[in-house]
């Protein structure tokens, strides 16, 4: 019996429902076709809702999905139907805020694609194999955006400003490309 809260997947889709970054932790969708079908269903179902201020929630195929949108980015976190919605919501909020920090508030598709490495790292720091690893956005952003920070500094003591510094460094890099 699985008692610890489990996340089945994290999805980041664009305004047309296309994949930007996704990560599945459950075998419910074994093939890429199944995954795409699920993403399409989730996107269609939530498309018309306004999830820009508060985290919204819905149920689909015996799953609970919490979601939040920003500009042309759609964030989703899926859990089983028995899951505590608020745990999923805290994961989503953690992800959303961390991405916001890492993209310096410019949360849109273009920035996300430009910094896709950060998004992937962000996913990696939030959930490990379906288990919640961290939900504090500052910690997540700090760990994902580690590039320029003194590697000897303990991770948990990084502050927002450090995280922002990291992000700024990244920004310059992308401009220089």
């Amino acid at each position, binding site marked *: 019996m699985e008692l610890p809260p489990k996340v089945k997947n994290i999805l980041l889709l664009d305004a047309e429902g296309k994949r930007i970054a996704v990560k599945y932790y459950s075998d419910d969708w074994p093939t890429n076709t199944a995954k795409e079908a699920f993403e399409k269903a989730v996107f269609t179902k939530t498309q018309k809702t306004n999830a820009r201020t508060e*985290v919204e929630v819905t149920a689909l195929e015996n799953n609970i999905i919490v979601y939040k949108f920003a500009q042309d980015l759609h964030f989703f976190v899926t859990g089983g139907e028995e899951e505590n*919605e*608020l745990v999923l919501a805290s994961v989503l909020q953690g992800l959303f805020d961390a991405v916001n920090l890492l993209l310096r508030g410019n949360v849109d598709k273009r920035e996300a694609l430009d910094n896709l490495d950060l998004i*992937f790292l962000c996913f990696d720091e939030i959930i490990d194999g379906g288990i919640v690893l961290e939900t504090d956005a500052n910690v997540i952003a700090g760990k994902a955006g580690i590039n320029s920070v003194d590697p000897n500094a303990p991770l*948990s003591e990084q502050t927002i400003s450090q995280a922002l510094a990291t992000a700024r460094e990244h920004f310059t890099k992308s401009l220089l490309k």
Partner: protein
Amino acid sequence: MAQPLVKKDDDHDDELEYSPFMGIEKGAVLQEARVFNDPQLDPRRCSQVITKLLYLLNQGESFTKVEATEVFFSVTKLFQSKDTGLRRMVYLIIKELSPSADEVIIVTSSLMKDMNSKIDMYRANAIRVLCRIIDGSLLTQIERYLKQAIVDKNPVVSSAALVSGLHLLKTNPEIVKRWSNEVQEAVQSRAALVQFHALALLHQIRQNDRLAVSKLVGTLTRGAVRSPLAQCLLIRYTSQIIRDMANHSQSGERPFYDFLESCLRHKAEMVILEAARAITELDGVTSRELTPAITVLQLFLSSPKPVLRFAAVRTLNQVAMTHPMAVTNCNIDMESLISDQNRSIATLAITTLLKTGNESSVERLMKQITNFMSDIADEFKIVVVDAIRSLCLKFPLKYRSLMNFLSNILREEGGFEYKRAIVDSIVTIIRDIPDAKENGLLHLCEFIEDCEFTYLSTQILHFLGIEGPNTSDPSKYIRYIYNRVHLENATVRAAAVCTLAKFGFMVEALKPRITVLLKRCIYDSDDEVRDRATLYLSILGNDGLVDTDKDSKEFLFGSLEVPLVNMETSLKNYEPSEEAFDVDSVPKEVKSQPLAEKKAKGKKPTGLGAPPPAPVSGFDAYERLLSAIPEFATFGKLFKSSSPVELTEAETEYSVNVVKHIFESHIVFQYNCTNTVPQQLLERVNVIVDASEAEEFSELSSKELNSLPYDSPGQAFVAFEKPEGVPAVGKFSNTLTFIVKEVDQNTGEPEDDGVEDEYQLEDLEVVSADYMVKVGVSNFRNAWENMDPENELVDEYGLGQRDSLAEAVKAVTDILGMQSCEGTETVASNARSHTCLLSGLYIGNVKVLVRAQFGMDSTKEIVMKLAVRAEDRSVSDAIHTIVACG
């Protein structure tokens, strides 16, 4: 797939949308990956290439084994670079590539070095990567480091090791179990997430040791758990313990309830919800225990956060199924949620209200729902329609307003699934509430006047053909049916012809007019329609002959005895020859559950050849099956069919279950047999029944099963005669007899010679409950008072020692086979007395109501006072006899 992002952006100008991955192509990226092999590494460029590789994988691109190996080997070179950002990406791509065991060796040493690095980020990530890719033998080598990492002062490292432990527990439990001392220490950690991970791992390690888990939870519930996540976990463990304990002891006070209740005052909403949900899910929760949980959920209902509202209404919806009364306090809050922006919340609120609503609030609720229906999606509407159907069956008196509602939404726009749900609901209501019939049929008639779904039209026409002729004025439906012949496609026209014929046959007065109408159909453009019209005309033309009358009736109303699927295969296998196709050779029933079968089949449109099956219940299916067998057709109306009783152990060579069909003066046993031996074909399958222990029964006839191939169930029947209207009971012993033929595995042909064999089945009992049909009443008190008190019989019984009242209530309900009313089947867990209300229909269609009062003394001795009212005093008496004997 190769160029997923080359597309126009509709929001902006005509420019191509910018993407760093525009025109990305796998081959090219794999070429680029060669930079990993450069002697002078460029960390930034390498990171970019890894990002591209990750992007490709993420978009669903797959690498061949060779490609993946190649990438993996070049990636391992990157461990030379000291760049932390690049290292982080290397960890990520290794996890994504999931290298094979022989490849893992290459990176093990690099990762082990990182595991002992001074840099926390390296340590944490190296642990996560290593644990993801290594096997048991390597794990023992690094076990020492992992144990250290668990108690590392850096929480990130510690969490990494603990979470890895959780994953490894699935593959290498014996190793991870050795870490429990370290994990125990980590549970005391001051870092919130470490505590959460440690608690999860510790519990997983000890989950089979009930005592240890109980001790762990006991300690922690008193101490301070820091993180809300860990607290949620603790609540889950606590409710698990409560469940286990309930199975092992029955002491009055529920342990740990206080802890759950105290969590309702936690500052984190996550914890409050978890605790409230845990309380509502307790086995046999009392209303006193429920109240505090319902109160916090009620507060959540008016929260500005949609997730909280959703969570609360979802939980209350569940509670409403078992404790509708407990939820009624929240009804006002829920009514305001009907207009919630989030339609999932609104739908849940409505269905909850429909469950908790009482008879008087139905009309008001329907008014609110009408406004709501227009702006939700079909899938939500279906949920609402289903809820309304059950509401209608619960409050039959309100059928008028509910039926009106259904017919209104039937006229509005909607997809097929939605319309089908509505039609199914109307059909169910018509079947269950006789008063609703004429009204409902007219609604259906109006619907087919403008119905775009062929499947639904044919279903309704078929249903009309069965129900319509028995109404007070059948002629009013003819117009609707005949209109179909003019306006619809061939499939619907053919169905309409069938329906017309049924009216013509059943209603003598309409016959001449129907004949005229059918004659017009002879000129139809479709040959199936013409064929049917001609056929029915000739049947209707045969006046007065009783014999043909009966045949035609069977022809028109009888069902095809064989499942369509089997029929189809048999027809396909049939090769045109001198020998005509024999319907009897088609295997009968496919599954012992015709209901599920029908449901599944109903999804695809039915062909022209056979009239489509109407939506039927299991009972109807049995009724049709039996009336199609000539030997049993004379038994009259089927009173009750029991659920299947298994007569064999699971996984034996032949699996047999039996369904008892009760008629007024007969009883038919339907043996559903399945042959589970692929090498055998059974022929002439019969059940020999010894009724020596059932004196009142005498065997009348039996119907053997001609052939029982592997894995294709079939039925044999045995019929008994019994005194009319008497609830005779008895025990029957059964033996399965048959001829076994070996089947050649290569050709699938059975051998010519068979051997006679028999197989002993378990005994079968006919009990009093078989003569009782569960029929609920919506208002027990009214029904009770409307019964003549003259026919009331009261008596008291001692039921002896029982474990609980609930057990006694269940035992009595089962013996009587009656429907418990108004939720009185649930007994409060520590109650000393309980009243249970039962209702049913006794053989001979006599309505019976029972009021059973139970009381338990300190020695768990249970007494019962049983008051029975029935339409017939002798039946009241019979009920008492049943209880006295049971």
